[in-house]
């Protein structure tokens, strides 16, 4: 997951790597995703998110559709 200056930079990178454009997040979405994913990582009782928990997090961040399908 990389940071780019703008969409045309993403398209240039994708072309250089012969990849289709994937999914684009705003930095705000990236922060929400990172916060939801890692906020408990230092808790001694931390455990991996369940499938349902992760789907809920992705949906909260607005990441829906085939690209984000985990099943």
């Amino acid at each position, binding site marked *: 997951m990389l940071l780019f200056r703008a969409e045309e930079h993403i398209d240039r990178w*994708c072309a250089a790597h012969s990849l289709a454009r994937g999914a684009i997040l705003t930095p705000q979405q*990236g922060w929400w995703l990172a916060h939801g994913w890692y906020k408990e990582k230092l808790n001694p009782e931390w455990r991996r998110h369940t499938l349902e928990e992760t789907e809920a997090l992705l949906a909260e961040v607005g990441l829906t559709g085939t690209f984000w399908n985990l*099943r």
Partner: protein
Amino acid sequence: MTAYLSPHGTVLMSALTPASVDDLARDVRLYLFRQAAATAQVPQAQQIAEALEHPVEKIHEALRQLATGKVLILAPNDGDVWAANPFCAVPSGFRAETEGKIYWGICIWDALGIPAALGKDARITAFCGDCSEPMSLEIRGGKLVQSEGLIHFAIPAHHWWDNIGFT
């Protein structure tokens, strides 16, 4: 069997539920993440072995167990810890500075995950994946208060762990 997810999302249907992770693997996980958070340095097997007073071979075994459960990522050749996500063991293009310490993430998601895990303010610096121009984001008080650019996920979520280094 409960479905659990790896740190980056892939569904795991293994028997590696928290209840079956043995005590040493748990101790290694706790020590490793606490040290990484406190020092900004991800400890390797020898340091963990000395701290927990176990043979280094047992620590390697525990690290492999944690890697299998995708709690952390081992380097492909030497078995060192590459990343105890969100903390990367080696400098990368994704830096998070907080309270005078420099942490590294393996990607922009993990760089943002560092202040999330620490619960601290941080300045994230990274480079445009295309033109290498430096960029920055700032987390303060649990909020993103300054940012620029866009984040791109090249690989669909279901395939992130096919090649986590590229992802």
